[in-house]
């Protein structure tokens, strides 16, 4: 009997393909790692399995029967439990309330049974050594405990199939050990486990097998004993490994003129302070694991996290608001097009003029010329921007900035979910921007992209961030995917938090 199999699942959101085709199969008690970069489709797959997203095509078999979950509640009924990367916890409820939310115990079928709630909560919290936080409001918990609670919530529902989506990144080492222990116990009881993670160490020490995904497709499935880290990285990115890593250097003694000089800038979430000098025409890539401060850094520079000051073009600037930042010649590009980039129901033309409308000059842009030079295919500038492909939409958003000639372009994962060709076009635009003297600071979770951008660019570096600090600088030939990944991962023997 097939325990759990995903057969040719596909899903697209409008013009964006999340999953082109995914198939995999596991046996009871198997711990399968799902390894994939950004845009690989792994999280979407998890959500489809969990009932929160409906697939366009394909089917799933569970315990020998067709599996259908039209809602998360239905998935849970069948004991298919997912943990969310974005956490499914409600911050205004306590830990124990959150734990039992999917199935609140009752007294006499009507009233909430608080005693039973406490009992169940402690039962699972005891296993992870967190019994003392049962009554604490989730909003007051530190990140690592939140993720442990998310894990416990899944455990409490007694899964037969458990999908864990990126839980361990936020956990302390001891907690990771506890986590692994529990997963092994579940496996022995015959529970099937899908472990979505990028942490090689854990994958190799915990999992029986690994499925690699890239660009919405399953590249292959392998026994863990048959592969090593380099092979996996190769499959993840499609490239080979290179030489060693050089330690960090922050101040550069170059002859070129400094454009941007940051001193003692605070990163609120980490409490760390950043120093950085950037010259005219530099292409700076910022790499590292998710949530190490990269995004926060560029947003802070743009004035989004409160007042900041730095030297721009030999002038001391005080940025107290985003408007001020724009006036001073900063530009910001977000990978979250939907929420932070496009005015989706408005026309291409309006999207292009967005910055021009308010902040800088009064002259209208030469729209057609701009769009053509970026390779945006369109019928009419008046058509709604959402009729364009994701990549073209992002190009329009970039064009809104390049048209007003910014001094510094800050980009937060700008090519997320964009097709390869459009991505190359965007990189070309960035390069052109630097050629005219502007600096580009780009945060990316796609290491391959950073390599492509900086490899052949004369004035470029890749800064790797961890825990809110720049921990490594890579230049020239040292900029390789392998080196970036190595520099991003917390090294064995070093205390991670």
């Amino acid at each position, binding site marked *: 009997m097939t325990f759990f199999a995903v057969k040719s699942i596909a899903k697209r959101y409008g013009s964006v393909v999340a999953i082109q085709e995914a198939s995999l199969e596991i046996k009871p008690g198997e711990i399968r790692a799902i390894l994939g970069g950004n845009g690989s489709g792994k999280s979407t797959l998890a959500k489809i399995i969990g009932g929160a997203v409906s697939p366009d095509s394909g089917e799933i078999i569970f315990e020998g029967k067709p599996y259908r979950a039209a*809602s*998360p509640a239905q998935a849970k009924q069948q004991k298919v439990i997912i943990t969310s990367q974005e956490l499914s916890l409600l911050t*205004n409820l306590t830990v124990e309330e959150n734990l039992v*939310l999917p199935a*609140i115990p*009752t007294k006499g079928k009507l*009233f909430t049974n608080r005693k039973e709630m406490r009992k169940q909560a402690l039962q699972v919290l005891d296993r992870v050594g967190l019994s003392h936080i049962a009554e604490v409001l989730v909003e007051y918990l530190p990140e690592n405990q939140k993720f442990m609670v998310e894990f416990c919530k899944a455990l409490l529902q007694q899964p037969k199939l458990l999908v864990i989506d990126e839980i361990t990144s936020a956990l302390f080492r001891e907690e990771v050990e506890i986590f692994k222990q529990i997963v092994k116990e579940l496996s022995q009881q015959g529970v099937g486990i899908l472990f979505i993670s990028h942490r090689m160490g854990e994958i190799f020490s915990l999992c029986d097998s690994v499925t690699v995904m890239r660009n919405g497709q399953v590249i292959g499935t392998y026994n863990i004993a048959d592969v090593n880290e380099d092979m996996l990285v190769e499959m993840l990115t499609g490239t080979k490994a290179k030489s060693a890593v050089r330690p960090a250097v922050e101040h550069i003694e170059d002859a070129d003129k400094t454009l941007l000089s940051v001193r003692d800038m605070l990163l609120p979430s980490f409490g760390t302070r950043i120093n950085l000098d950037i010259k005219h025409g530099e292409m700076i890539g910022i790499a590292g694991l998710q949530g190490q401060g990269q995004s926060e850094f560029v947003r802070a520079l743009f004035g*989004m996290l409160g007042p900041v000051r730095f030297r721009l073009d030999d002038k001391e600037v005080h940025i107290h608001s*985003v408007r001020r930042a724009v006036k001073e010649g900063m530009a910001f590009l977000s990978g979250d097009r939907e929420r*932070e980039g496009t005015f989706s129901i408005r026309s291409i033309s309006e999207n292009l003029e967005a910055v021009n409308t308010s902040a800088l000059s009064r002259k209208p842009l030469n729209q057609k010329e701009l769009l053509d030079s970026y390779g945006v295919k369109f019928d009419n500038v008046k058509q709604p921007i959402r009729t364009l492909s994701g990549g073209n939409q992002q190009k329009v958003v970039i064009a809104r900035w390049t048209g007003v000639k910014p001094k510094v372009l800050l980009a937060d994962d700008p090519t997320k979910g964009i097709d390869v060709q459009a991505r190359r076009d965007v990189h070309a635009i960035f390069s052109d921007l630097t050629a005219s003297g502007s600096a580009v600071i780009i945060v990316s979770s796609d290491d391959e992209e950073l390599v492509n951008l900086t490899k052949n660019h004369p004035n470029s570096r890749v800064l790797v961030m961890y825990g809110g600090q720049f921990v490594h600088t890579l230049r020239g030939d040292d900029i390789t995917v392998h080196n970036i990944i190595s520099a991003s991962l917390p090294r064995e023997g070093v205390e991670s938090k």
Partner: protein
Amino acid sequence: MNRTLNKMTNWTSFPSLVLIIVLAIVNSFFVHKFFSLNYASSFLTSYTPLIICAMAQTIVLLGRGIDLSIGSVVSLVNVTVVTLVGMGWSLPLAMLVGVLTGMAVGILNGFVIGILRVTPLLATLATSSIAAGAALWIMPYPGGSVSIDYVLWYQSLIFGFIPAPLIFIVVALLIWFLWRYTPAGLQLYAMGKDIHKTYVSGVPVHRTQFFIYMTSGILSGIAAIALTGNTGAGDPLIGESYTLHAVAASVIGGVSLMGGSGDTYGSIFGSIFLGLAFQLVFVLHFPSYYQDLASGVIVLVGIIGASLMKLRSSRPRIMSTSSR
């Protein structure tokens, strides 16, 4: 001791409790025999309808919704009861039909919002018109009456020390307890905070929304029954101000307009605050035509004050990172 004190001051309804104590003291200087049972009884006969409407609005607000039809439902139930009594129906039966009418509007709201997913603001705006129109049709002009016995009973003291309107408040509280102490209550708070995360946690959110609005309708009906005991007659426009005042009372009572925070005690305190404030205006002998303006300003100031306090305590960052 310190811990209980801490819990007390962090209670969302605490500021409003303080407010009513302060306002009560101020009022006592102007009202003869303020701290007497008679005054409390008289106060309750006037403001119990508001208290119950506020409780209804609070339940909806907790789920991050809004019910703009509360006032119109009060009018509708009021004229329905009075008209039925005028047609010879017994009072208890008429009151039952009244509450069922409120429930019916609530079910309409619940269906349109919970199942058909229409925006609560607009849906209840539309049903408010429907209910108000129905009220106007049933009774185009104020009139009719209910038995004087009922009115007298409503304004009396049961067993010599319990103001009759308290019974209605207790009934409303029991309905609140049906939410608070059952899984539905937890689901309500969760939904109000983040409906998507609640959905992902396997909670039947649509069903819960349906019951939220049904409850609001029932409570509005009960409020109308109490109101009828106060006025003794029917008026198709009587409920007009209740929607706004119910929202204001909830906001003043610490209920968040964003959902997920606050409780029904806040709405009770908030209503009492508004009642005391309105009484103060009355007692200071403002000319009658200034009273509406004064009430309006009080409500506005109350809402602004509560919102300012909320702003100060949360102090959100203007732009937080979308994914750490």
